[in-house]
């Protein structure tokens, strides 16, 4: 029994420190000759079966691995800041103002075909979601903005988006330059 524990301790250390999975052969090189390695592997497998790491058979041998149900603990979140293309921003804006809207309608408004990834990207960002299907031939899917979209941009609901008239008033929608940079040269120069 004490002998068993000794072998198990040895194998634990070997498995732990090994830089790759170990075959029975690898183990036998390091352990006393007169033991049945397979038996000890089974013992360790059982000993660790309810632990946070398990001894599992992987390509080429045996290795301690994180219990599959705990793999979430090994996930780290990494935040990457990305820029959206102009096409994507414009598409998002069109979806926001015209929702629910089909892909064909977006294309019609923009006057150009929508590249495959654009809507996917907006959906991946959780800003655009599916909003059912249009009752029209082919029943195309319709897109709209999500609650995350409202959250992200600090809006209570889609109705909070400034209307076309308001945009005009801020100068953003006007084809003229904004008022405050419009100096009337002729008249000031006298």
């Amino acid at each position, binding site marked *: 029994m004490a002998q068993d524990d000794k072998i198990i301790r040895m194998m634990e*250390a070997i498995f*732990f*420190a*090994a*830089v*790759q*999975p170990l075959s029975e052969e690898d183990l036998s090189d390091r352990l006393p000759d007169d033991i049945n390695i397979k038996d000890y592997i089974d013992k360790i497998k059982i000993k660790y079966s309810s632990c946070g790491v398990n001894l599992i058979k992987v390509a080429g041998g045996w*290795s*301690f*691995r*994180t219990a599959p149900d705990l*793999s979430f603990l*090994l*996930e*780290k*979140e*990494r*935040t*990457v*800041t*990305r*820029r*959206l293309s*102009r096409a994507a*921003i*414009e598409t*998002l*804006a*069109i979806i*926001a*103002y015209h929702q629910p809207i089909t892909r064909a309608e977006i294309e019609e*408004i*923009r*006057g150009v075909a929508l590249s495959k990834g654009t809507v996917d990207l907006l959906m*991946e*960002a959780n*800003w655009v979601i599916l909003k059912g299907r249009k009752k029209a031939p082919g029943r195309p899917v319709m897109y709209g903005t999500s609650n995350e979209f409202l959250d992200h*941009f*600090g*809006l209570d609901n889609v109705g909070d*988006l*400034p209307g*076309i008239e308001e*945009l005009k008033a801020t100068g*953003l*929608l*006007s*084809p*003229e330059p904004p*008022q*405050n940079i*419009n*100096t*009337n040269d*002729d*008249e*000031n120069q*006298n």
Partner: protein
Amino acid sequence: MINNLTENNASIENPISLVIDMEGYEGPLDVLLALARKQKVDLNKLSILTLADQYLAFIKKIKEKNIEIAADYLVMAAWLVYLKSKLLLPKEENNDELSGDELAARLQWQLRRLDSMREAAKKIMTRNRLGMDIFPRGFPDKIKFKKNSVFNLSLFDILKAYSDFNSRSKKKPYIKKRLFAHTMDDALKWLSTIIGSPVPKWELLVSFIPESIISNQDKKSAITATFSASLELVKDGKVVIQQDKEFSPIYIKNKLV
């Protein structure tokens, strides 16, 4: 003195050759410590006089072998001769210098300190070391990164994109709007009412802006023109203007000639 020694040492370009020259010793303090150990006493009870003699004998022996001796070993030898004389001669009164005993104590302390570090080094190096005696996990499960994309986008960007797009699609011709401006000539006209007023009286400069000018934009233009015009009139000696401090109201008064 010993402090100075280390600075002298710093000028030696290649201490390796020095080590070979001096029978494997690393500097004079190293030699002294080795000699002290030979006395087989606690370093606290070390005889500095004996040590000094031993060191001088060591240097003599090296010299006899015709080995070139690095300067710092000779500096130490000279210093030990000086220390010996201080220890043997009667104490001088009213001397600011450290006494022989104090210098000896200091040297002894330095030897003990070096010795303690040698001992510490040994103790550290005999510890169970990572990767030599104890081992970390050799093949840990990889930490998986869940990429969390955050788009750098503000509501303004969306509004801008939408309006840009709208502007683009509507292709309205750009019409330059002519803006109102209160010219300096206008301002002079309005200010001239004060000139020739028989009873000079301070009046707010801004009161000479026509009330018909309402919008902020237009008012700014009018204030600027009126102020410029008032300066013209001051230059011509027709009016005086006054302001208590920065940004306070400007007053204007007819100047009686």
